[in-house]
């Protein structure tokens, strides 16, 4: 089946936030109480009620100021850290691309929040047991994709900065755009390899770090932890055998030397039990 992705061309985005509101509309998420603390970015961060956020950045580009808008949402990684670390497998990578969450399994340990290199999964901090706090993040509109509709944010983008399509075709399109106007883009498609590659790809006129995207190597972040999990069972077997061996050896040494047994100390079950 096709593997979907979204290409976000930051040079076309005008920061209208249609995608931020469309995400809230489709997912019926409430507005948050916010204040203007000196930036257009509101709400200030992703949260359990805000799964897609535009962040406004004023970046100086050689004297002339640049005004850029980063669309921050789940990257739907190819090797998602959140899927790898979730102890109960509540997060799952579907072959079509979306990383989806099963809120019936989740125990709320929040390991996915700690492990995600993009800091995407968020939590219902204000919900008690009755309401049931859960992890919240963009679902790549998995229900829309299942029914032949494109994601709400991609559909609503007026300036066509967000293009939905098959991931590998989007990479080809992105590289074409870079080739066609090299002076307009940084020569790199963000998400092609980062942390093992992501479904959401970015093109930008300024270095991605200045926009607020983390600098990540090609290896999935959970490579080491997954490797250690491979060795756990064999190690356990070997270590158990060693311990048993040691126990036997010391037991044997002790019986041979016939340590004078003045009788076990008060708390030894032999003693108590024997003496009564």
């Amino acid at each position, binding site marked *: 089946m096709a593997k979907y992705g979204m290409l976000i061309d930051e040079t076309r985005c005008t920061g209208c936030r249609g995608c931020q509101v469309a995400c809230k509309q489709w997912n019926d998420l409430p507005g948050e109480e916010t204040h203007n603390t000196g930036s257009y970015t509101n709400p*200030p*961060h*992703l*949260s*359990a009620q805000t799964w897609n956020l535009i962040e406004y950045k004023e970046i100086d580009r050689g004297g002339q100021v640049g005004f850029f808008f980063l669309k921050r949402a789940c990257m739907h990684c190819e090797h998602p*850290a959140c899927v*790898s*670390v*979730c*102890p*109960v*497998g*509540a997060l799952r990578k579907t072959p079509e691309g979306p990383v989806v969450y099963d809120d019936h399994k*989740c*125990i*709320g*340990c*929040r*390991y996915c929040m*700690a*492990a995600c290199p993009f*800091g995407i999964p*968020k*939590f219902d*901090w204000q*919900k*008690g*047991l009755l309401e*049931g*706090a*859960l992890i919240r993040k963009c679902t790549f509109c998995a229900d829309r994709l299942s029914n032949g509709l494109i994601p709400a944010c991609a559909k609503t983008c007026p300036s066509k900065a967000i293009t939905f399509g098959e991931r590998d075709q989007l990479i080809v399109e992105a590289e074409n755009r870079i080739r066609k106007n090299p002076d307009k883009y940084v020569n790199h498609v963000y998400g092609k390899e980062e942390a093992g590659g992501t479904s959401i790809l970015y093109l930008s006129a300024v270095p991605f770090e200045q926009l607020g995207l*983390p600098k*990540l190597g090609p290896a999935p*972040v959970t490579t*080491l*932890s997954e490797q*250690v*999990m491979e060795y*756990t069972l064999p190690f356990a077997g070997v*270590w*158990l055998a060693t*311990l048993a061996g*040691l*126990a036997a050896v*010391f*037991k044997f*040494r002790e019986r041979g030397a*016939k*340590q*004078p047994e*003045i*009788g076990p*100390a*008060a*708390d030894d*079950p*032999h003693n*108590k*039990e024997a003496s*009564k």
Partner: protein
Amino acid sequence: MIKTATLARYRVPPGVLMLGALVVIGVLVALVRYLFGIGAISNLNDAYPWGLWISFDLLCGVATAAGAFITASAVYIFRMERFRPILRPAILTGFLGYLMVIVALLVDLGRPERIWHLIIYWNPHSVLFEVGWCVMLYTTVLALEFSPMLFERLGWKMPLEFLHRITIVLVLLGTLLSTLHQSSLGSMFMAMPTKVNPLWFSQFLPLYFFLTAAAVGPAMVIVESYISSRVFWRGLEVDLLGELSKAIPILLGIYLLLKVFDITLAGEWGFAFQGGMSILFWVEILLGVVAPIVLFSMPSVRSDGKRMLVAALLVVFFGVVLNRFNVSLIGWPRPANLSMYLPNWMEFAITIGIWSAGIVAYGLVAKFLPLFAADHVVTPAKAVVTPEILQRSRFLVFPEAAWLQGLAAIAEQVNFDDNQLIFRQGEPARSLYVLLEGSVKLYSKDKEGKEVHTGTINAGEPFGISALIEPYILTASARTAAPCRALKIDGKALRDLTKENPALGQALAQRTAQAALTRMHWARAWRESM
């Protein structure tokens, strides 16, 4: 029914009341958490999903409970019998430690009512999956290792019998599970290369966590023994602890070598010399690792309770607690426009509430269950010894009132159960005993090392007289043959008294020699009767 050593009168001391209050506060705060969510009682937020409860209650809680498997493996796997007296407290501390971790989890987990999901929903790639399973299984093991005390108290024979037979299996499993999850708590953080500070991030994290946990085991035993000896007026098994703590410098040594090697390999020494985290790095390494290695390798420290306590605290706080905080919280990059996470009072209320509950539980167990080795129960004399009491024993009858006053000041009254080992041949003779009621049998080892009954002490007679005779090493073991009451005079204080008052010293020396002679006659008579 076995009569336990009565530790304290029934009246609840103020300390426990205070702890109880802390527990109640903790429960109330937890209630607020369950009604209005974690956010209502904590500064945790989307940038800091894990805070005090994970860094301290989980990571440090599990690490400091390592004393259980260290002691258990020492006693049962390596057959170091001498550590037996401190085994039960260590097991209890471990068991309570893990219960406290689980209670902390029940507060920290977003959906505590689904904690059992780990059983039916699996993700073998997740380190936390393995940690979860190990904690579940190991808590069960600890419960089984702890249960003998309970069954003894209840006098149930059949379970005790069964448990006795499977003890070795339990200890093996316990040690295995502990090794697994003490190390995988470290591997958890290997999944976050972009979060953990480079000075702490390494592929040896599992090893680091295991080694520091193993090292903190004995340290915690020291700390906990010291505290319980203070609280329950018990003697401190300084010798045992000293020996156990020998392991600490070895473990920390390996840890230090590995860490130095790893940082050099990764070429990250640069980080160690700039930025706030470098300070914390050196504090942790110097105070938490290097200092304990040095201290614990000095016999003078290993033989003195106070010094060992200080060294142990260094390991616990700088070697483990600070390390766990650095790895899991302080070292993390702080998002742009957000202040550093600091736990608020309610988070501390939960942690303190849990620890108070743990201490109260420890006290209750110590009070109602046979936790401590009675033989070593050297209860300092609280009952005031008066010259009249001294007079009851011929050995201590002196005309001069001043002598009696001097002796009374350094004497204390002690009680022993029937068939309780008072002291053991070969140990240093710290005190002179004078039996007031009951009878005590002496044993000493013959050539082949077989235990031989060498005499009986009746009311009024002294024993443990080696306390006055160099090299002050007990020549025989003493075990009560009936419930006894005796006077215990501190050997050193008595020797000082005799130096100040040579006349008294001379009188005592004469009576001691008399006692030694009678014992020798008795022994020759007994052997001939064999």
